[in-house]
């Protein structure tokens, strides 16, 4: 028995974060169906489940230091730097979003456990996705994660926009999944392989000139499926509607977790699988980046709804991150830094939105920010920090990430790309400063309702804002971590 398990690479630690989350979800489900339990008990169960998950991620580091880069379960699950970075990122997203998620779910009353279970399941799926070596495994992880997110978007049944968001997300997301799985099939047709590592070997074996056309199309379709998840143009059309319609408290989680996992997977495919033929995909990626920056910047400047604005700004940021990932090793490392910094800002912004507009609300007009400075100085200042971080002003992590990303791109001699990205930051200043103006400067006449903020929310926002500034002043540690992720390919 032992030998068999060793032969197939059976190792529970590798998938322990996924398992821990699924078990937590099942325990919650059990309590919800059978015994009537108090909210606080469920909260403790959920929170300790998340903590156990984080501990499992820690255990994986121990395994990595023993075995190094290794694959398990007959080449289904992979343990490498990307998967560890992805695990940390997703674990962190789950942990940091716990407060807004719980607050939102609490307001749903009878559906609290439903929402929490959905979130835990989706996180487990995304854990699986970043760990997957086999493309089918990747697809399973992506689907487990995404389907829970579709349901999460429509959880506020009485809200029309929420229903719309859910349906739209589901239909377009399924289409993207179809495209993805079709790409996997085409790749399988050409090489009879599923593993991302073997794929690279096969390409190296045949040589870049003799690669069948089906491989190109297959990889292209895989990318389309993944680019849909990160809302890169021209696959961005779902993002603004879904961000706007979904309950505000969940958007921070939904946006960040899908992006984090997909970017990690894209980075791994670019870095490992198609490493030798990456140049052939350059026109495709260039078109995607160019369109993302253009479409995102243009539409973000004309939005009046803040959630839509952040969605379109996310399209621009995706273009930025993608430009690093698709250009080489150093570019990928700077993109990892960018991704980390961006996700912290995203979570912070949506936590603030959920406090101001109500956790279950859907659309969030910019005018709702009026008088924030008078109402709550702390929220206003941290909102400015996050927005300026997204805009990339010096002294925030946004500047450092843009600076090192553009430096690397310039070193790869992509001058045209750098100029486009630089110009987009000017437009970015225009649309990021608009909400800041309304929140801090615009005068209000009518009396403002005071906002109710819990201490934990204060703590979370203060933590995220100070991290945004800290990584802007002392970026050394995070940059070293992001270089560690790609150390094998340097």
């Amino acid at each position, binding site marked *: 028995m032992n030998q068999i398990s060793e032969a197939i690479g059976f190792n529970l630690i590798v998938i322990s974060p996924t398992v821990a989350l699924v078990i937590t979800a099942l325990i919650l489900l059990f309590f919800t169906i059978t015994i009537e339990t108090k909210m606080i008990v469920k909260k403790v169960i959920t929170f300790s489940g998340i903590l156990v998950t984080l501990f499992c991620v820690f255990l994986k580091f121990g395994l990595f230091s023993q075995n190094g880069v290794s694959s398990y379960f007959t080449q289904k699950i992979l343990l490498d730097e990307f998967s560890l970075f992805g695990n940390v990122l997703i674990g962190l997203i789950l942990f940091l979003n716990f407060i807004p998620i719980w607050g939102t779910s609490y307001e749903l009353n009878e559906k609290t456990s439903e929402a929490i279970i959905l979130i835990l399941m989706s996180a487990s799926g995304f854990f699986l996705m970043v760990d997957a070596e086999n493309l089918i495994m990747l697809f399973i992880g992506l689907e487990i994660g995404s389907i829970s997110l579709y349901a999460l978007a429509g959880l506020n049944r009485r809200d029309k926009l929420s229903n719309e968001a859910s349906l739209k997300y589901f239909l377009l997301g399924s289409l993207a999944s179809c495209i993805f799985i079709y790409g996997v099939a085409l790749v399988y047709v050409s090489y009879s392989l599923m593993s991302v590592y073997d794929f690279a070997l096969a390409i190296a074996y045949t040589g870049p000139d003799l690669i069948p056309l089906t491989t190109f199309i297959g990889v292209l379709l895989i990318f389309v499926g993944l680019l849909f998840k990160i809302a890169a143009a021209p696959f961005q059309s779902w993002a603004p509607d879904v961000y706007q319609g979904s309950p505000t408290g969940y958007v921070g989680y939904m946006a960040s977790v899908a992006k984090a996992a997909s970017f990690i997977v894209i980075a791994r495919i670019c870095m490992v699988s198609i490493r030798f033929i990456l140049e052939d995909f350059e026109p495709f990626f260039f078109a995607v980046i160019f369109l993302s920056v253009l479409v995102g910047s243009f539409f973000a400047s004309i939005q009046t709804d803040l959630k839509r604005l952040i969605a379109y700004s996310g399209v621009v940021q995706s273009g930025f991150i993608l430009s690093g990932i698709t250009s080489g090793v150093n570019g990928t490392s700077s993109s990892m830094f960018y991704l980390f910094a961006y996700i912290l800002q995203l979570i912070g912004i949506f936590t603030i939105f959920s406090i101001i507009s109500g956790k279950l609300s859907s659309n969030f007009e910019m005018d709702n920010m009026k008088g924030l400075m008078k109402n709550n100085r702390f929220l206003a200042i941290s909102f400015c920090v996050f927005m300026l971080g997204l805009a990339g002003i*010096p*002294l925030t992590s946004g500047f450092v990430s843009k*600076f090192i990303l553009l430096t690397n791109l*310039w070193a790869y001699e992509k001058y045209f790309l*750098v*100029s486009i990205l630089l110009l987009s930051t*000017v437009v970015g200043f225009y649309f990021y400063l608009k909400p800041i103006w309304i929140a801090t*400067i615009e005068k209000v006449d009518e009396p403002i309702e005071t906002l109710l903020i819990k201490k934990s929310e204060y703590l979370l926002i203060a933590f995220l804002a100070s991290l945004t500034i800290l990584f802007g002043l002392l970026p050394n540690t995070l940059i070293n971590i992001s*270089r560690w992720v790609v150390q094998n390919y340097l």
Partner: protein
Amino acid sequence: MIGLTYSFVLIPFVSTIFIFLIPKKRAELFRPLTIFLSLIPLGLCLYIFLNQNLKTSFNVVDKFSWISAYGINLTFGLSGMSFLLITLNCLLVLLSILSLNENHGLSKGFLGSLMLLQASVNGVFLAGDLISLFIFFEALLIPMYFLMGIWGGENRRYATIKFILFTVFGSIFILAGTIYTGVLSYLSSGSFALDFETISSLSFTSSQSKILFLLFTFGFLIKVPIFPLHTWLPDAHVEAPTAGSILLAGVLLKVGAYGILRVSIPFFTEGFIEYQFLIAILSVIGIIYGAIVAIVQIDIKKLIAYSSISHMGFVMLGISAGRFLSLEGAVIQMINHGITSGALFMLVGFIYDRRHTRRISDFGGLKQSMPIYAGVFLFTSFASIGLPGLNGFVGEFMILMGSFPTFQFLSSIAAFGVVLAAIYMLWAYQRMFNGKLIHEENKEIHDLNSKELAAVAPLLLLMLFIGIYPSFIESYVLQDVSVIYESINNILGES
């Protein structure tokens, strides 16, 4: 002394936190505390002045590792020129706080923004590498955004956004230049080191030097501002509160010229020689255009804003000529313009607080009701025009003398700028102060009180002092200028 340089950034920054910590109930404490806190950097200036030899070129004092993986450090240092500009900045911040009206003086946010502005402008002048120069260059937008946005005039939204977008548009060129320099530095030394020492040791090809010069200079010229890129300045000045205007004209415009002197010319000299004529033409157009447009202004603040364009044109003419005398004159004119235009904006602020108007036609005969104010205004106008014996004369004279051998035709035209300056300043003076008191409201208006006089008096003394004894300032800028001059001379000698 270690820590000496960055404390110019740190002290105002910590002061801001102090100011925000005082409870709102004790509003009467805000201003005295801020005045006290802004005396500290000024005291530090005095300490450095007494204890250190500042008549040197740029010396690196402090160094931090910022991104060790890329070999990028944050470097701070001092030279004679940057010391003068820092002192000017600290002085103008102190005086603008002294000159605040009750409305602004009681606001934490306003005082805090001023201190933050001081910190970031100091940072620009202290920067010993491109990246920290860029960081502070952009960081000063944040306090300026709030100063103009919250406490500005009617049309402040348009003016603020325009100011920010113009500056950011310029700064992406500086960022591109910084990145390009970093990559070139990487190709030659293996790290992205961006400090001035490393850059000056790099050898650029002629085309690289030209591209880099254009990238950096374009970004800095927007900030100066030079002729077709100047349109943000009048809007920003008119809408900014008085203290914001003082600092905008007094030090923020100098940031651009400082950047050209510190970065563009010494490192990318070949590019400078290629494009110096273009810059000179634009500066002369700016001198004449600014002066002519100033003549027809009906708003006194806008008039001074356009006169700033004209005066900064002189600075850029002196820089572009690249002669020793003209460069020296340009630096001295930078300091002088900071003092004079700061004083002018302060004076306009005083009268605006009383009458809530800045239209020249709303005044007239003010000399009878405000004799001291009229005297101070006339004195400052004379300094601005460039009357011999006052500071404005020194700089403009040196610039015109120095640039004549290089651009004979252009500097002859530029000399008309001095005449035009006399027209717009004196005509405005005449319309505001001479004649009969036509408007009822102007009769009851009270003269400068002792507090306001105290705020403006140091500037008046400086105008006189520099006018009589200019070699005091000259001795500080000597070394900086000779470094720049030598780099130009080396290239000219080679070709």
